[in-house]
């Protein structure tokens, strides 16, 4: 299964890019200080708001900071918020969805109602409001807030998955052998959800990065630290757009888009594995198909 998973080129590319960003988040600050010998806040008075050059590969901000250094260090801010919120959201989703789906009954009713309540709440608006309320909070608070509105969709998916897995013959069969509930959940049901959970996790991760960027852009996210969102926000605040300092706000946005694309790819790959009809749409295969159909023609026409 894992093999098939990795054989899918979309998954491979997606995971590759994702891993690259993860690496950037981990090693970025070290790289900036050890290799680039600078910090994202170092001021180069000789290059204030300069376009990309050999000295500053992505140019500088108006107050003379190196954009590349900011983008690299910003990866940590963004990705960490993304991952933390995703971990939290996934854990909450699992804690709510799995018992709800597996145990059913009144517990299920309660948890489902709770989930639905969160699902109908307009999440970004509420995130904004709450984040606005605790303005200038630490990054993990932001992650927590984002997670608080990220989990319900996952909980619902996990619940329905668990419900279907609970009723699947192999689970029923193990139950009828006398297997305990815990073991049923962890050995029979959960392993089947790794795909879904990891897809969910990735999605939540990107949603977290998006939300963090959006909040930072509105000046409501974490303050003081550097993240892709704050870079864009600072650029916007210092009229980078009016003054055409595109190198300031374009790179962080591209990074977000790239990360988003990567996870989308992984998710598409997972979709394709679970629904092979989607992967019939393989371009190489289509080419071969057309060629085969063409070569068949003369024979057929005989």
């Amino acid at each position, binding site marked *: 299964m894992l093999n098939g998973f990795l054989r899918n080129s979309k998954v491979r590319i997606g995971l590759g890019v994702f891993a690259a960003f993860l690496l950037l988040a981990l090693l970025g600050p070290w790289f900036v200080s050890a290799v680039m010998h600078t910090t994202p806040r170092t001021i180069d008075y000789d290059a204030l708001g300069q376009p990309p050059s050999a000295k500053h590969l992505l140019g500088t901000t108006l107050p003379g900071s190196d954009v590349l250094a900011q983008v690299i260090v910003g990866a940590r801010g963004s990705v960490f918020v993304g991952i933390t919120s995703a971990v939290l959201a996934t854990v909450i989703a699992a804690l709510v969805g799995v018992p709800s789906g597996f145990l059913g009954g009144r517990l299920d009713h309660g948890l489902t109602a709770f989930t639905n309540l969160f699902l109908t709440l307009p999440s970004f608006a509420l995130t904004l409001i709450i984040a606005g309320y605790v303005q200038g909070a630490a990054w993990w608070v932001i992650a927590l807030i984002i997670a608080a509105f990220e989990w319900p969709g996952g909980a619902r998916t996990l619940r329905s998955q668990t419900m279907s897995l609970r009723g699947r013959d192999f689970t029923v069969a193990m139950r009828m052998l006398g297997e305990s509930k815990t073991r049923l959940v962890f050995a029979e049901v959960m392993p089947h959800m790794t795909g879904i959970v990891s897809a969910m996790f990735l999605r939540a991760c990107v949603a977290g990065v998006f939300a963090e960027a959006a909040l930072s852009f509105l000046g409501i996210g974490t303050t003081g630290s550097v993240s892709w969102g704050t870079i864009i926000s600072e650029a916007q605040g210092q009229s980078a757009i009016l003054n055409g300092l595109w190198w300031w706000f374009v790179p962080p946005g591209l990074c977000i888009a790239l990360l988003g694309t990567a996870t989308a790819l992984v998710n598409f790959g997972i979709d394709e594995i679970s629904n092979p009809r989607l992967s*019939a749409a393989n371009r190489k295969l289509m080419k071969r198909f057309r060629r*085969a159909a063409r070569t068949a023609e003369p024979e057929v026409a005989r």
Partner: protein
Amino acid sequence: MNEVLLEVDGLTVEYLSQTGSVKACADVSFTLHRGQILGVAGESGSGKSTLITALTRLQRPPAVTSAGRLVYHSSDGDKVDLLTLSERQLRAYRWSELAIVLQSAMDCLNPVMRLGDQFEDVLRYHDPQLTQRQAWERAEELVAMVGIGSDRLRSYPHELSGGMRQRSLIALALACDPDLIVMDEPTTAVDVVMQRQILAQLLQLQDRLGFAVVFVTHDLSLLLELADQIAIMYGGRIVELGSAREIYTAPKHPYTRGLRDSFPPLHGELTTMRGIPGSPPDLRTPPSGCAFHPRCADRLDACDQQIPLLRPVGRNDVACLLYEETP
């Protein structure tokens, strides 16, 4: 009766994949006469559905018909190789000459269209002169033929029972008075009692309207009662072709024999039966030579090298090396 309707010659269908291709139908040849019922029997994965979709040119990627001819003899004496026609040209043959009934009726009816509309749709397309009213009346006539009340035309597919759906599909196939109806396991989804009713009606209609049928099923015992001719498929090839009686009483191919003996009798003496050991081949990694040789009790040395060809043996056509050498 002996007029030829369809000649299938060397039909080969492959499923392409990134890792290679699967020959799900290899070198299939037979001749179908007007008004004849040809049964095709075979186990799961033997290529029956593939054959059906290839016959009707309905196969979807990654399936490709890579070789063969499909010569259709129109009632006016024209012969045409269906495989050389463009989609547009083919449309002239579809439904008015060549109709199809598929296995799962629920999936074959558009769930969001009323039954009557689905009749009207095809009727009015093939006969643009038809008014809506006339089309509706014709639809009522058609469903009445299979024992469904005309009020049912207003229903959506999900409001019909399985048997009704299956019968309305047969009625739908008759809409444009085709000369050939191909059927892919049309009754596997219904009960034996319903199956009996449906097939009885089919036989009556066939008697009356004279269309030919290619009937595909994995239930050989059913075919033995239904078909005039039976083709046995194994691993994508026809391994034996003959009349129903001959196949039942004197099967030549070891597989046919094994298959016949896989159905315990309903009457008569009960003996311990063995079925066929092993399991059907995976066509992605087909055995060399005769696809049946790994399971064959009468295997010869050459069986794993040589693909036997279909040739007349007695009254049947058989593809088996056992009969190659015999004079």
